């Protein structure tokens, strides 16, 4: 487990949950093609802030072997990464219908 998984760990006697368990509560219909794409890996490699990793509430951006790796499957379509990446390196869209997240409560 690298530094990317800075998520809270499930601890006995604590209500903290790791992000994967939290996301397991969310209903998705996963498209077979991503709705968000990193435009240029090289831009991410030299990006100091790596803001996307900080702001994504679904941990879709993870650092693996010093590289930002993006997984679209768990995306809750919040828009935070698009807004935070000032290198404009994220080609962002909503998933095409009927794919993506469905909230039961919201």
């Amino acid at each position: 487990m690298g530094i990317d998984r800075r998520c809270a760990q499930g601890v006995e006697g604590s209500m903290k949950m790791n992000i994967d368990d939290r996301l397991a509560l969310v209903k998705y219909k996963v498209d077979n093609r991503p709705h968000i794409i990193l435009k240029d890996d090289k831009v991410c490699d030299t990006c100091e802030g790596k803001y996307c990793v900080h702001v994504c509430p679904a941990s879709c951006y993870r650092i693996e072997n010093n590289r930002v790796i993006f997984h679209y499957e768990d995306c809750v379509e919040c828009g935070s990464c698009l807004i935070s990446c000032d290198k404009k390196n994220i080609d962002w869209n909503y998933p095409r219908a009927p794919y993506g997240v469905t909230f039961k409560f919201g």
Partner: protein
Amino acid sequence: MNDIRNEDGIMSDEFDVIIVGGGPAGLTAAIVAARNGLNTLVLERGEYSGSKNVFGGVIYTNTLRKLFPDFQKDAPIERPITRRRLTFMDEKSYFSVDYKNYGFRDNFINGFSTFRSKFDAWLAKKAEDAGALIATGVKVDSLLHKDGKVSGVISGNDQMEGKMVILADGAVSLLAMSEGMKGWPDPNNYGVGIKEVFQLTEEEVNKRFGITSKDGIEDLIIGYPTKYLRGGGFIYTFRDMVSVGVIVSLEALRKSEHYAIDIIEDFKEHPMVQDLISGAQIKEYSAHAIPEGGLRMISKLYRDNVMVVGDAAGLVNSSGIYLNGVEIAMKSGMIAAEVAVEANKKKDYSEKTLSVYERRMNDEILIEFRNLKDAPYFLENPRMYNYYPKFVNQMMEKMIISDGIPKEALINMIKGKEKWELIEDALRGLKAL
């Protein structure tokens, strides 16, 4: 009522108005437009209205009451909000200003708690009853243009023509951006909101919050919940559930050492929150961006044949300590639709006719933002988040532990420079409130 397609899969005739986004802003616009006889189409990308939407928990009722004077009868109301708290929190203590009004039990003036999956779906049903056509599971990809002007929408291979288009596609309005009505989003003007909902029983909610079934509580909590970053935590009560969440400025968060996924988990562990949710089963985790730049970020509201409403126009009146997005979204949707109805009467959908929308927004909504002009100073002031929550709690602790110590000694706790800042902030704060 129109059907989107006839048997041959060809679009039926032109709509008077096409509304992109079936949230509170778009659906309110649809209700007003359809009631006035406009041939109205709403396109919502979610499986049903509300299925993609997230909020903290309370809806204020001014516009809702205008639309439906007896909304209480069938709106999905969880609890009226009768108690409001503003809390300053540090790691081990908190200080609250707690206001309760028993009158709010019946009149819903202070709003009610609900879930978006239920509320938006209810509003969509009302829009259908009014005669609007609602197509769900349709994502609009771009706008259709004719002679350089907006003339409808494009979704996949389908084109739909409309005399007017209302963009109600929420905080990340890709369409307003691609039309040049909104610039590239600035992280200073947005927060990310993250929320978890917990299941209890109605009795347990009452017991833990010290309320009856006729009451509901809103608690906005500053300091510890966001790691002292700009933003705040919130707690709302539902009939037999509780929501706990945080809203953090994206500018503050992205440049901090913190991660969105951790912040809410640490807030949940605070003893105050634990007293409220311990043992409760978590039912959902959700998140959404929230525009919070106030006046500064309001986009171009109209063009020939097109208007922007709600979050898409950046209209949340969120001063960080007071969230009111849905009500303002509904109000802007209502005004835009009224302007559309007038335009339809005149058969003139030009920028000039639609400019009434901006004028009315200025008179009826933006005035509230202007009154809050000092609020951004107050709320963008980092001391509000990283200093006062700790300060207030330390003062309380010292006052209690140190009985006997003269008051001056306490005042002297505040260093010279801070004293002036404190006075300045207090004055500005009073003005802003």
